[in-house]
């Protein structure tokens, strides 16, 4: 019994780890920001639907941000995720239009999307981990390749005409008790798209993987100190390889979620979204230097960026440059905050 008591006492006393601290900061900032929006802008922000809309519109971004968080924790980077989304969306759109038919076509579309992501992940992972080429260069090449392939498939936008799939796009999960009463007295239930549910599942699964699987912990060790990880007996190369494979697979999944939100392929789909994903990961508490990060923080990183854009869209400053400047300012603010918090910590440690 005393042992258990001891354990619970130490549990309460234990200070937050760097990752927990940074995640907590971003969650707090999201809550404060959202509360401020509710007070000052009211309107849509008072409805649960607003949060659901943020999730619906950013489901693909949430998934690639998780994919980025995984490789960034391992000390790498993957800037091809946006390109892979673009290529996946275009391939799926063409595939769907070429095959009329029932559920089988949709299953094949899902497999096609995942297959494309997997192929990019395997290729990039091999080059990065076994041939030891800089991940930035490898994934930059992956980005160019995927964008080029997209344009090669079709220069013009392609609209999905497959009826079964369009029905899936329109399908929404309705939650009446989170809805609101419209002016005409009707109850309008809160609606969540399938893609948003998929994105939340990805967050949960990746969180569990990073926390409880040996593979997940090895990624943290790899990013914390590659040489040490090697000396500790971790298979550094295979860990690195599989982290890129997973990242690629998630990019393919993100492409699928994207086309379920906007059923059309286009050469510029998800353009620059890899940068948004990096920003979201960093705001969520992932360090570019590796070893520290958490997908729950990343989810809130995406939500913070999305909320800023929503707030600016509803404010008198509604212009795209204000949105970009606000996102940039937020990112700068977070990086400064992170380095201040972490350096304060190390000073505190030295003082002890």
């Amino acid at each position, binding site marked *: 019994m005393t042992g258990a008591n001891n354990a619970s006492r130490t549990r309460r006393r234990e*200070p937050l*780890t*760097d990752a927990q601290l940074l995640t907590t900061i971003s969650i707090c900032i999201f809550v404060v920001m959202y509360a401020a929006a509710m007070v000052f802008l009211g309107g849509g922000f008072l409805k649960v639907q607003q949060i659901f809309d943020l999730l619906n519109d950013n489901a693909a971004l949430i998934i690639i941000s998780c994919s980025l968080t995984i490789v960034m924790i391992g000390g790498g980077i993957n800037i091809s995720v946006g390109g892979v989304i673009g290529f996946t969306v275009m391939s799926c759109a063409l595939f769907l239009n070429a095959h009329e038919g029932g559920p089988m076509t949709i299953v094949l579309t899902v497999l096609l999307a995942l297959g494309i992501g997997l192929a990019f992940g395997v290729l990039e992972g091999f080059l990065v981990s076994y041939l030891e080429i800089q991940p930035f260069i490898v994934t930059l090449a992956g980005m160019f390749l995927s964008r080029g392939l997209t344009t090669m498939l079709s220069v013009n936008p392609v609209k999905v005409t497959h009826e079964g799939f369009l029905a899936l796009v329109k399908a929404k999960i309705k939650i009446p008790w989170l809805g609101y009463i419209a002016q005409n007295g009707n109850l309008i239930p809160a609606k969540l798209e399938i893609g948003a549910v998929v994105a939340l599942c990805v967050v949960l699964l990746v969180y569990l993987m990073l926390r*409880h*699987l040996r593979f997940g912990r090895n990624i943290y060790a790899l990013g*914390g*100190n590659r040489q*040490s990880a090697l000396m500790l*007996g971790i298979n550094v190369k295979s860990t690195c390889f599989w982290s890129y494979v997973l990242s690629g697979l998630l990019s393919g999944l993100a492409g699928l979620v994207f086309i379920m939100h906007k059923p059309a392929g286009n050469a510029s789909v998800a353009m620059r979204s890899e940068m948004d994903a990096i920003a979201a990961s960093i705001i969520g508490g992932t360090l570019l230097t590796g070893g520290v990060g958490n997908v729950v923080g990343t989810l809130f990183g995406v939500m913070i960026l999305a909320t800023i854009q929503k707030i600016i869209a509803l404010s008198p400053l509604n212009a795209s440059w204000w949105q970009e400047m606000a996102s940039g300012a937020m990112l700068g603010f977070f990086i400064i905050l992170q380095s201040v918090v972490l350096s304060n*910590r190390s000073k505190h440690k030295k003082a002890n």
Partner: protein
Amino acid sequence: MQNDAILTMRGITKTFPGTIALNKVDFTLRKGEIHALMGENGAGKSTLIKVLTGVYEKDEGSIWVVGGEAEAHIHSPQDAQNIGISTVYQEITLCPNLTVAENMFIGRTSGQTVNWKEYESRATAILDNLGIPARAKQQLGSCSLAVQQMVAIGRAVDMQCKVLILDEPTSSLDDKEVAMLFKLMRELKGRGVGIIFVTHFLEQVYEVCDRITVLRNGELVGEYAIEDLPQVELVAKMMGKDLNDLESLEQVGHKSAGADEVVYEAEGLSSSEARPFNFKIRRGEVNGFTGLLGSGRSESVRAIFGADRVTGGKVRVKGKDVKITNPREAMKNGIGYLPEDRKRDGIIADLSVRENIILALQVMKGFFHPMSKAQMRQFADEYIKALQIKTASQDTPIKSLSGGNQQKVILARWLLTHPDYLILDEPTRGIDVGTKLEIQRLVLKLAEENMSVTFISSEIEEMLRTCSRLIVMRDRKIVGELTGDQLTQGYVMKTIAGGEQ
């Protein structure tokens, strides 16, 4: 072979292209002893350790570990761990972003999932058992370096190691932390673990070790019980000098004690690497810092030049209070510094000889006052001639010059700025004997021309030939200042060793 030996190495030879790093070295470690492996730079300590841990493959010789009937074949660090040889390196090889418990178990568990509860309870047991002041759930990076080192030891112990190698574990620890580490080492010794302790700190050897093996130039000097080898003899054996052998030295010039004017004076100067010390030098004086490797001699002169982060102390240059916190300020105050590691801190390999010579002067002038091409050529020519630098032309990249000539180029760089005070940290290391003598003569000539010089060398003869005052350091403290009659090899060595013990 003794019965209680747990590790026996016989006739270990390892060659690298051009050098024999180890030549038929024997080493024996017994159960439950702490065994110091001593030697100066290049003695072969780290090569021997690396052969033992599988980082290098030996060329000849054999290794036996108790428990194994046959010879042990060690081809990788993993092999070494499997037969019970664990190493804790000076730089921590753990992951600071993970918890203490994770660091103890990661990479050596089976199963695809992590059982946090089991990790934490087992880690807590190890920590309690060994008396390591850390909590299992704590992030490793929030522990002090000493505790991190102990966690690494805890991991090794839990892997049932029979031989524990501690490679310079104390070099970044303070006294209290060293005491904690020693307590842990004695605890492990009591459990029958054999510990190989590599360190530069003589006093620590005598505090904790049972036996000493001394290596020099890749050869075994001998194995001694600690009580049979007084500290001063240990130093003599490491340096390869017989105490009674006071050979007469070839004079290369007249030593100068300098004028009365104090050019540079430091009071309680300290940096992130050096402990507080007092120091002064007169105009035209040549003095030297001596001590074993790791005694703090380079760290002290780096503090004078502001090369590390200066943390305290007062500095007076020619009687005026000044602040020197970075090399540029030091240069503005007429101080020049030729670093110990010329490849890392000194030369810019791809630039030409001329550009390398001009560099310091250009920095002093500031980049907004460019020098004319003709002027640069003239300066370069002047010094190439004066120092007899052997180079095809002044446009030759410095990396294609020999070590001695590279050193002269860096020397020229500083002479061009006409410093009042020049610090030369190991200017003669790795260059041929003729050039060594040339540099020593040059130092004495500079002193005659009223420059003050601090000269550091691992070779005591060189220092005795050039310096009129020797500052002796041990374990990062100044332990003596020798002048006049005290400047003999025997006396210097006794001071380094800390008298008879």
